[in-house]
């Protein structure tokens, strides 16, 4: 196999292959994308696991995430330090979950994190309102927003506490026919 690369040790690549849905080639390409976001900060040699994190603004301006209204939330959900800074591990994790091969359950877990704006483990009315405004660029009237949020809670809330816990969300996603296909980012690997 191509032993010409010196970015990762073979052991690291094996570990990445086991822990994500990417192959060796794809991981190297991902590293290339990560590197070109900040060529001065990201070293080419990752054999010693350097502790480099890129700030959220750089990640959110990637072409794949720029037009996404939830771009910022996605980055925050995968950021280990909670501030939106992504190390390479987080970066690979993020695109692994968003890739085509990730199963529905895994995507559902992270989708819940993404839609939970105030990170209290529940999707409450204010989270829903923020989601809705992100989706429609605030073109709906106040009244319509409230109405839609009420409808969503009515449809999905199973245990009657007025907000969506993870089990409610998971149950709703399992019945949503369209969930899997839009929830993926494909062309991250195209050069």
């Amino acid at each position, binding site marked *: 196999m191509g032993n010409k690369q010196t970015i990762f040790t073979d052991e690291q690549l094996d570990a990445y292959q086991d822990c994500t849905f990417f192959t060796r080639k794809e991981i190297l390409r991902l590293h290339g994308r990560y590197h070109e976001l900040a060529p001065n900060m990201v070293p080419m040699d990752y054999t010693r696991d350097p502790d480099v994190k890129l700030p959220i603004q750089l990640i959110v301006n990637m072409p794949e995430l720029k037009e996404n209204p939830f771009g910022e939330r996605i980055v925050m959900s995968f950021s280990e330090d909670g501030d939106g800074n992504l190390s390479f591990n987080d970066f690979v994790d993020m695109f692994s979950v968003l890739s085509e091969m990730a199963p529905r359950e895994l995507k559902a877990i992270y989708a819940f994190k993404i839609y939970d704006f105030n990170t209290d483990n529940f999707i409450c009315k204010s989270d829903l309102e923020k989601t809705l405004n992100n989706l429609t660029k605030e073109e709906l009237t106040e009244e319509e927003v409230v109405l839609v949020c009420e409808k969503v809670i009515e449809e999905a809330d199973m245990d009657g506490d007025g*907000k969506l816990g993870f089990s409610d969300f998971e149950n709703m996603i399992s019945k949503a026919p369209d969930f899997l296909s*839009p929830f993926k980012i*494909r062309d991250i690997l195209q050069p």
Partner: protein
Amino acid sequence: MSEAGAAREPDSGGINDNEVFLPDTNHLPPTVTFLQELPSYQSMLRRRPSTVRTRDGQGFVRRSPVESRSILEGLGVESLDRVQSIREYPLNMSQKRQLRDIQEANTKYLSGWDQWKQTRSKSWRKFLDETKELSSYLELWRHDIRNIEGKFGTGIQSYFSFLRFLVLLNFVIFVLMFSFITLPSAVSKHGVLNGSYVKVPPKSIEPQCTVYTVSGTKGLIYFYNYIIDLLSGTGFLEMTSLFYGYYTIDKVQFNVIKYNVPLAYLLTTLAYLSLSLIWIVKRSVEGFKQSLIRDEDQFQSYCNKIFAGWDFCITDINAARLKHSSLQYELKTDLEEERLRQKIAERTTDQKLRIYCLRIFLNIIVLAVLSGCFYSLFRATVFSQEKISNDSGKPNVDNLLVQYLPSMVITLANFIAPLIFSLIIKFEDYSPAFEIRLTLMRCVFVRLANIGVLLFSLGTRITSCASEKCTACGYNYKLYPCWESRVGQEMYKLMIFDFIIIFAITVFVDFPRKLIVTYSSWKAFQWCGLQEFAIPDKVLEIVYGQTICWIGTFYSPLLPAIATIKYFVIFYIKKISLMHTCRPSTRPFRASSSNFFFLVVLLIGLVLAFIPLGLSMTHLRSSKACGPFVNFNRSWDVVPYTIHTFPAALRKVLNGIASEAFAVPFFMVICLVMFYFIALAGAHKRVVDQLREQLVMESRDKLFLIRKLTEAQRHS
């Protein structure tokens, strides 16, 4: 109800139970923190950095079961033995790596057999991944479809995936027909292998039934005649392997095996129909499951739109803007529909009566429009056939127009009828979603029924004779010495015309429209706007073409090849049209429901294709002048004839299966099985409802207990 108690702010404007919990952990008495140890809270544990200490060589392995258990318990996984892929766990990378190391360390404790099993399953998984990757490179048009998905979303992409599916389906059907029917016949006719021609037993058949001459192939032929023949399937094309008439080989000898061509012809026809059926059903099973679930719980439309609404593949800023506006449109329509539903519920009986009368009246109009279409098609077909029979031997342009008259009428009907329907439905006062569905159903019906009417009118002409009631040959031998070829020609013409129309509309209507809208400043043109890429109409076009192909393949075995090429070219035409001349539809089409819708309509077309084929195989006398079934009364008769040549035991078994003694009990058993499954589904539904109620009760109990507990703690 926030169990968190962690340093987060409680919900504003929530239930007043929130005030039970104080916002700051530090001020809480230590006993209340047990709430954070609730299993349900633990299972939603977020990633917390540095919960795992550094490891030393030995101590790590000793600690490993506990540590891994703590990581895994957070996910609700009990044992480490039944480990699926690590990558499917929602942990961050360092935790996954640790889990992996634990796994690898633990393999030392497994026996040699288990170790071998693990490594084998790992390498098998890797192999599967690699094959999947390789096979995705072989996918046709992979890059184009991804492009379209990125720019226009998954709804339009599903249309192009559907086109690709049809190209593959037609190609497979062509390979089937070619290798089992055309190849043996052609090979035998050219003398490569020994083959015997079909012999007609002289006594049972009238001699006039066996006369068959193809006009226009002898003497001086002008060049333009070739073009006309190419376009209408007559002349030199009629005697090629494209049409039924070519296949006069009876048996082909391969060393010892005698290859029975008529039997092969019939069985291959049945095979391609069943193959199409199985393939379509397999593809639609996924969508059907979702649709079943969806219909059972209608009330999830809002959730779906909000949580699965944004298409993460969109990278183009225009597409993003479009997606935003389409989501907004969808939500507004839904709210509108909600208001309408309330309005409908509040209708008085007087209003209801008026609406129903109006609807009945409008449906009568719809029926009238349909009958008008069908009658005009019938007359056009009859006229066209008469003209063809009358001036046969003189192909000229007028003749070509007459030949294409049925196709033109069908295309016109397919164009006008949907317009009328969409106009009428506005008066019928249904909810928007139902309106769309009903118009769609009516359009599907018009398109497919047109083909049926054409075939019916052809059928009546074939089986009706002037005076003798067709006792001589069973069909009108004067006009239709080889009627199967004629039917094949009609299908061929329909297909060619369909292709020409699609091409012409794109080139002569879409592109000029785009040019006009872009470059002229007339208000009228601007108001018309660009062509919308309306998916339902496009899909109906394709399904219409595919139905023609299915029906026509029996009479014209190489038709699937033409269909493959046609759909191949149409893909590029539509793609170019989409990219350059259309604006995407304001009415968004959901990917899952579209896939299911396409396949359902295709299935309807297939079922419709079964009917004329079945009728002609079992009821119409096969022509005595051409084709492989000259020795038989009907095409289907070759099967009983072959069964007669089987050994007696096998014959008995087959007869037994086909008899009533078997069929009736079999039917009853199937009914019983169906009732059982219906009952099972009903029982499951009841259980689900009960569980749901229980869940609500449980959460209320939990709230109550927590309140009591904190009160008790406050007092103590």
